[in-house]
């Protein structure tokens, strides 16, 4: 345990942090409470059937999906991050931010688009058959995308940025000195990567991979559509087809316990390690590639962008163009866009503020109970969105009814359900669902700021506010921006909670896309889906600019 104790002031000084964290954790547990309420009403009569016929296969499928997606996002995320930071090649500056673009594609759009594009009667195979002169639609040996392999590929392609984003930020910010030291000691570039860069990146990789895996685990749109029977699909089936919210809540809680245990295990594995290193000049001795090497690097970067973004985006552009040619833009498109951006923006701001508070609390105090609360605050990410939303209904509607009755007893008139009808319930759901992203992102940012900086500031008389506002936040700004971006894009894409908790006459881009896709009028939905993707691209571009500024303006060591 090499970290020196940071707390210089007396013990009571961490009390505000603890109270704040406890309050946030309590709110985060509210939907779990709702699920426990549902689960406890059930008899458990479902379990013999589930254990005999559903869960073993669903658990296997889920494990396979997670393993596949995990490998794909790790390899793509770390590989691309290393390529764009350790080497210079044509197009690198473009790839650096374009590699983030697949983030903006919702999984359900990805599934729709690919099924259409690679279907035997879709454009790809039809075109190839024309070229090759084959008439039978089954004449080409394309594997069916409706399979676990297909789901792994499609989810991996849109989820790898969760790894790429923090790992690249880490490689960029990381001191070149350690790498240089390893090189001067005779390590080759590969060995430096393997023995120095990679171990240092572990917190960022862990955060990124666990976010990506939870997205994959909780995905319902793509998995159900591609016929991949995961545990989440089993929960959904139990609820919707067998009309048993009780049984669904029971499975969801068991799954949650397993996920939470795994997350804690990973953290235990990292306990006591110090990943902080002195800040370098942010340009870790990028090596210039020429000829074949440069071409290979550019191709390697282009491939995930092509498959994860250009293919689905082109599909959307073609479909949207057809729709616009037929009937112009949907009249309310701007209203939906406004709703999506407003709610996603507020949720991103709130989760960043809360994430910063919690991560700072975690740095100020090493008390175990506080760290437990911080982990609990992010628990909503480990639950499928649809289950979280239904769990949240219980406490939120309870509170809402309480307010309504209280107002009624004073004024004589009921104001209705204010939290539900104002959209506050929906905002809360977004925050609970995605809080883990900003906590994790900002924590991994903190892990790169040496504790000695805090101690120096403290010894020079800086208080907590000054330390946070004057030193931490500026140093953390890339991590904060990245985390806020992820939450924003996730909220733009969010579907199940929005469908369940929204107020009257409230449409977002995602709900509109879903409504049209559910009817099969894909073209009508394509315009809105395209706006989701574009709206997701804008913050990506902003972030890219911030990232390059940070790099250029970085102080030299």
């Amino acid at each position, binding site marked *: 345990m090499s970290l020196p104790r940071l707390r210089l002031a007396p013990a009571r000084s961490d009390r505000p942090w603890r109270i704040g964290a406890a309050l946030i954790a309590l709110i985060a547990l509210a939907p779990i409470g709702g699920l426990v309420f549902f689960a406890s009403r059930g008899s458990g009569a479902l379990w013999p059937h589930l254990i005999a016929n559903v869960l073993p296969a669903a658990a296997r499928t889920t494990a396979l999906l997670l393993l596949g997606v995990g490998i794909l996002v790790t390899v793509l995320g770390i590989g691309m991050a290393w390529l764009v930071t350790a080497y210079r090649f044509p197009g690198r500056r473009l790839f650096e931010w374009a590699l983030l673009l697949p983030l903006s594609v919702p999984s359900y759009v990805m599934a729709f688009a690919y099924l259409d594009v690679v*279907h035997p009667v879709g454009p790809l195979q039809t075109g190839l058959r024309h070229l090759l002169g084959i008439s039978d639609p089954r004449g080409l040996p394309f594997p069916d995308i409706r399979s676990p392999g297909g789901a792994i590929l499609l989810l991996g392609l849109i989820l790898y940025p969760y790894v790429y984003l923090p790992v690249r930020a880490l490689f960029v910010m990381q001191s070149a000195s350690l790498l240089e030291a390893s090189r001067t000691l005779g390590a080759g570039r590969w060995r430096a990567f393997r023995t120095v860069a990679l171990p240092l990146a572990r917190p960022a990789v862990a955060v990124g991979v666990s976010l990506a895996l939870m997205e994959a685990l909780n995905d319902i749109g793509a998995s159900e559509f591609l016929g991949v029977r995961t545990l989440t699909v089993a929960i959904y089936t139990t609820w919707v087809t067998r009309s048993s919210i009780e049984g669904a809540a029971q499975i969801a809680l068991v799954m949650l316990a397993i996920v939470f245990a795994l997350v804690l295990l990973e953290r235990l594995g990292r306990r006591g390690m110090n990943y902080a290193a002195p800040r370098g000049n942010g340009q870790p001795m990028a090596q210039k590639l020429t000829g074949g090497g440069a071409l290979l690097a550019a191709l390697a970067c282009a491939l995930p962008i092509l498959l994860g973004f250009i293919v689905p985006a082109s599909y959307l552009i073609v479909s949207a163009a057809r729709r616009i040619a037929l009937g112009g833009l949907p009249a309310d498109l701007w209203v939906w866009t406004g709703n999506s951006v407003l709610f996603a923006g507020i949720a991103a701001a709130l989760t960043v503020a809360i994430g910063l508070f919690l991560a700072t609390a975690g740095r100020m105090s090493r008390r175990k109970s506080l760290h437990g609360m911080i982990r609990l605050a992010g628990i909503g990410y480990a639950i499928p969105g649809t289950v979280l939303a239904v769990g949240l209904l219980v406490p939120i509607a309870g509170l809402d009814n309480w307010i309504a009755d209280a107002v009624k007893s004073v004024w004589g008139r009921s104001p209705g*359900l*204010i939290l539900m009808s104002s959209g506050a319930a929906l905002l809360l759901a977004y925050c609970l669902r995605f809080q883990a992203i900003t906590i994790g992102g900002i924590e991994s940012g903190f892990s790169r700021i040496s504790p000695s900086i805090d101690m120096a500031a403290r010894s020079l008389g800086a208080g907590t506010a000054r330390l946070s506002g004057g030193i931490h936040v500026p140093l953390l700004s890339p991590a904060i921006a990245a985390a806020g971006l992820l939450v924003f894009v996730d909220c733009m894409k969010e579907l199940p909670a929005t469908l369940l908790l929204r107020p009257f006459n*409230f449409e977002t881009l995602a709900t509109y896309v879903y409504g049209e896709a559910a009817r099969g009028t*894909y073209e009508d939905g394509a315009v809105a889906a395209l706006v989701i993707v574009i709206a997701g691209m804008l913050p990506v571009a902003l972030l890219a600019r911030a990232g390059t500024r940070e790099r250029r303006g970085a102080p030299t060591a």
Partner: protein
Amino acid sequence: MLSLTRLIQGAAAATLLATTTLSAQAAGEVNVYTTREPGLIQPLLDNFSKESGIKANVIFVKEGLAERVATEGANSPADLLSVVDFGNLIELADRGLTQPVQSAVLEEAIPANLRDADGQWYGLSMRARVIYASKDRVQDETLTYEDLADPRFKGKVCIRSGQHPYNTSLIAAVIAKDGPDAAKGWLTGVKDNLARKAGGGDRDVARDILANLCDVGVANSYYVGLMRSGKGGPEQVEWGNAIRVILPTFKDKAGTHVNVSGAAVAKNAPNKENAVKLLEYLVSPAAQEIYAKANFEYPVRAGVAPDPIIAELGTLTVDPTPLTDVAKQRKQASELVDVVGFDG
């Protein structure tokens, strides 16, 4: 900030509502929770508002409609609950989320087998679960649902997930008719005949038939209209034209399996009168025409014709098994899907 504005708005609206309800005026609002897609229900609601002056507010909910109404409890703003699948309608009533409505208009327009005896819910439109067959590769003029398990269709059958309510309701009907053992044998047979994993949507059956991935499949009748009318774009016209539609029966030849979309007045509806007015509007000839034309469903009201694309599929004879008997088997049907590993 947002909620404060809404609070004031809400208080104002509540005041307005209270006064209008007290003075028993016709105009006002009606709040609809629906699992039907907005593109479908919005034209109906717009017309209703135009005719009656009653403003219709709507929330399109996918799953959890019942949970939302239940947890909202006494203060729930929901007036009308509009869902698809008779199983869902019966469940809403069983959970005590609906209230009985007596209306001569509704009783006259809707056949008795498509509504609840106590008026807890009313069916508003019908869809048939039909067989799509390849125009080129299947010669049969008629088929039964049981034929889908016939070994001659080995590797030729496409269908969406067995757990989808459209399929569990069909399987429940087979259980109700043929008994659980025969149903299990049948479902195993269909599974052995699958050309690909059960999945995708109903339209994918037509597309996969066009692609020569399969020869027959099960899907809802209205998709034929959505595809062939060109509403889903030119490719879908091609899919729709690749198939011949057979209105199948069970092996007793009594009729085709249908399901309904329907609605119920919520137990704590603050605007009950308006909800009943909306229900009555939805079975009016004008509204039934919209169901037929916009979504290619079968109207429940006698005298309103289905869309020509649907009419040319043949005359629909509805299987006479009471929907309540079928609904009772739904849970068992869902478990059967797991037991035979239908989606595996």
